């Protein structure tokens, strides 16, 4: 059995060497400029299909919220679609759909993004709509609009968290991981009572503080002409008034000093176990290595936890390991569902044994290369689409905010390809210790 496995191991490497050209460098050509009001603008031309993506990031997320108003950044995001001074309620969507366009928005702890994808002939319509809400959202804002989206967002919370099996666990896990006054300790979706408390006056203050062009970045990617697009951006966004600079967040130190254990119940039939650590923030040393750790542990059938828990012993139904990277800090989370007839303790013991092995000994060259090859291919898959979430426009904005420049694709990939097996082991040893972590178990409710 071992001999066969060895033969197989060598085969793809040989074929790869034979089958030709090196991958093309990852490059996304762009032009960048700044308006007098501080709006950062990035343009990228890609004419493969006649569509244009208009992507705006505001550097505000739930981390900017104050206690008592959690969930507000996301509720505010909803209000951005409800009309502005020159765009009647409902028109934002009807005008875009009538032009063959799609739009959406999302909020995380750290940023809020807005995406509009339109046929290339509707670029100016998208810029009109996007600039009107950047400049003149408050002109037609009302308590009724806030109430309307408050109900919608509460239903989003019910649908995606409360009424979803294990949906409340991530909220509980963040509370355990981060200190109470750390902005990552509360959920982006918000607590129900805080959603109830949000007021029209909060909307006014929040808009004035965070929704200024100098706190935003606009990417336009797709079938565009650089010069004409620049002129259009100046025309529609140039008059939007500049706001006060936004103070950076100064979060309290976050550190786990021991093992925190907690058990909660849910309306489920099987138990779930979460084991989690606080880890280095995005792009800090250790962040990329922990992505590879997650792949070695739970990426594919041969990964250590998958093979042990799902394939060999079949104690668990699923297992995931994720380095969840953020600018103010990251967490590494292992999540697994325990099969009927097995216990959380059994599964946790197996996880601990596998973690101990990885801390003590570097992974094999094959394990590391398999992970890196997957990561490299994923970078190319991210090059195809210009629009929506995760398209090139969104990624250019993401890298711009991260500070390395919009076209940071090759540098980002190099963070991974430069890693050795020893780096992966060292990351597991340093950042995934057995004695400083969080353990959350979700058990079925007692039968009534």
């Amino acid at each position, binding site marked *: 059995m071992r001999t066969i496995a060895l033969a197989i191991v060598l085969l793809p490497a040989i074929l790869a060497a034979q089958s030709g050209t090196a991958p093309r460098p990852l490059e996304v050509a762009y032009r960048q400029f700044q308006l007098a009001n501080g709006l950062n603008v990035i343009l990228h031309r890609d004419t493969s299909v006649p569509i244009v993506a208009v992507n705006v990031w505001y550097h505000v997320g739930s981390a900017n919220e104050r206690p008592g108003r959690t969930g507000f950044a996301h509720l505010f995001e909803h209000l951005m679609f409800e009309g502005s001074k020159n765009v009647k309620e409902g028109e934002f969507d009807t005008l875009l759909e009538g032009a063959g366009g799609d739009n*959406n928005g999302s909020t995380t702890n750290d940023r809020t993004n807005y995406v509009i994808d339109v046929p290339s002939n509707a670029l100016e319509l998208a810029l009109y709509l996007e600039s009107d809400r950047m400049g003149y959202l408050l002109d037609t804002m009302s308590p009724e609009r806030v109430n309307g989206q408050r109900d919608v967002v509460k239903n989003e919370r019910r649908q995606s968290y409360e009424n979803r099996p294990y949906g409340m666990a991530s909220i509980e896990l963040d509370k355990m991981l981060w200190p109470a006054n750390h902005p990552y300790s509360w959920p982006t979706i918000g607590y129900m009572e805080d959603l109830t408390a949000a007021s029209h006056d909060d909307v006014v203050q929040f808009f004035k503080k965070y929704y200024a062009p100098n706190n935003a970045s606009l990417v336009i990617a797709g079938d565009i002409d650089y010069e004409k697009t620049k002129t259009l951006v100046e025309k529609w966004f140039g008059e939007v008034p500049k706001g006060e600079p936004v103070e950076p967040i100064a979060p309290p130190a976050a550190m786990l000093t021991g093992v925190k254990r907690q058990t909660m119940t849910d309306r489920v039939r099987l138990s779930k176990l979460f084991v989690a650590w606080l880890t280095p923030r995005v792009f800090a040393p250790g962040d990329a290595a922990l992505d590879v750790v997650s792949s070695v542990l739970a990426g594919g*059938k041969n990964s250590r936890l998958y093979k042990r828990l799902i394939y060999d012993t079949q104690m668990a139904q699923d297992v995931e390991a994720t380095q969840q990277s953020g600018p103010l800090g990251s967490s590494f989370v292992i999540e697994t569902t325990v099969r009927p007839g097995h216990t959380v303790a059994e599964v946790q013991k197996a996880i601990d044994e596998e973690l101990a092995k990885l801390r003590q000994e570097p992974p094999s060259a094959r394990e590391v290369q398999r992970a890196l090859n997957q990561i490299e291919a994923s970078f190319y898959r991210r090059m195809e689409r210009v629009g929506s979430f*995760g398209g090139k426009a969104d990624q250019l904005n993401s890298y711009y905010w991260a500070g390395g420049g919009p076209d940071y694709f090759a540098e980002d990939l190099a963070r991974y390809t430069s890693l050795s097996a020893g780096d992966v082991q060292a990351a597991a040893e340093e950042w995934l210790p057995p004695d400083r972590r969080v353990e959350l178990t979700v058990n079925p409710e007692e039968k009534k």
Partner: protein
Amino acid sequence: MTAPAFRRGGRLQATQGRLKPAPTTILAALVIVLIGSATTLTQTKPDRAHPPSLGPTPRLTVPPIEKRTLANGLPVWIVEQHEVPLAQVNLVIHAGSGDDPANAFGLASFTAAMLDEGAGTRSALQIADEVEFLGASLGTTSSFDASAVRLNVPVRQLRPALALMADVALRPTFPAAEIERLRQERLTALLQAKDDAAAVAPLVFSRVVFGPTHRYGTAATGTAATLKAMTADEMRAFHTARYKPSNATLIVAGDVTAAAVLPQLEAAFGAWPMSAAGARTPVPSARQLTAGQVTIVDMPSAEQSQIRIGWVGVPRSTADYFPLLVLNTILGGSFTSRLNQNLREEHGYSYGASTRFDMRLSAGAFQAGAGVQTDKTADALREFFKELKGITEPVGAEELAKAKNYVALSFPGEFETITDLTSHLEEMAIYKLPDTYFSQYIANVQAVTAAAVQKAAATYIQPDKFAVVVVGDRKTIEAGVRALNLAPVRTQSVDEVLP
């Protein structure tokens, strides 16, 4: 940390998929300094009184499909797309859950899932290791109408990946231990589905509309009983009978040329022996519902009720395809659709409401659905029926134009990735659409008239005969639902409806 919160739910959340969330930092202030001088403002104030007019609609040049045939008769469709050095190769087998034997619901699905669990001389673990090492993704899947093996791979690794793919598709070994493992995985997944109202509702709705014996009345994966009974011999027999070059289409898109890729395809798939596939018996047409009925499935303490409403719809071959596409867009197929505007924007009962026609080789369901807050369940049902009845009235010109433009003008965006492109080609192969389908698509949408929409609505939307399924907290919702007097109401537990 917490997942992003979205303006819209459902499919859009999936767009972030396995990709790592985009990284962000707080270094923005530093960066702005590096950008250089700000541009000066030379423009006059823009006219915001009216939205800017749209320029001429851009033309979508549909990439040409090169249709070839391998020596063994396997049809090959190739589309060149050189933007990114990736290749997508989909082998479509024209057999799916609709071809399951009457006593073995779930066979096509289980067979497809077993393809990469041992093939040729490789074990399940070896296949997974090699696929991942190539940076490839290789999926095996099955729907009601077809099964497929789908490969996405950096193009420089295409040759070894094709060899693996061919083993998986043509030479699966169905090892007993792997079958038992997947069987337990699938049984556990069925058990877990009972926890989730959003998973229970569609299963119950299909059962109510199609009944226990019609194939569409049971999930593609089958039931606990059929899963427990399924054998390796049945899977082998299904594979032998259905997975044949004469019953398949090989679809290739990406950074390849036909001339270069054809010899590679011949090398990988040429050894597949030619033989005639047995005739395909279509799933019989389901008997249409003739009277309304309401089923409440109890999920004690649920914060929302999952609602599904509908009946038997149309097959993909319907002559009314384009009128129905436009009708559905107006009723519940877009953000500004009547149902979403009513339930979400006007009343705030829901995070989103939608409608769909499941068009398969035979008629699938028409369904309207939403998750609504528990204490507004009856109010939401009333609004559902208001909109379902309202759509049979004539549709105004502006609303019709908006829906047609939304469907027609967004079409080019569906050809951006090789994954999207090949999924359109799969649709073309499975439903035998004409070669001109893509090039005529926009014109066909634009040709839909208000009269055609109204006629389609009268035929296919008859709310008084619809089945209603509500999965929610019975003690809170039952009285209100009964008081609506929609139709006779029955109540069931989750374990009763999903044994």
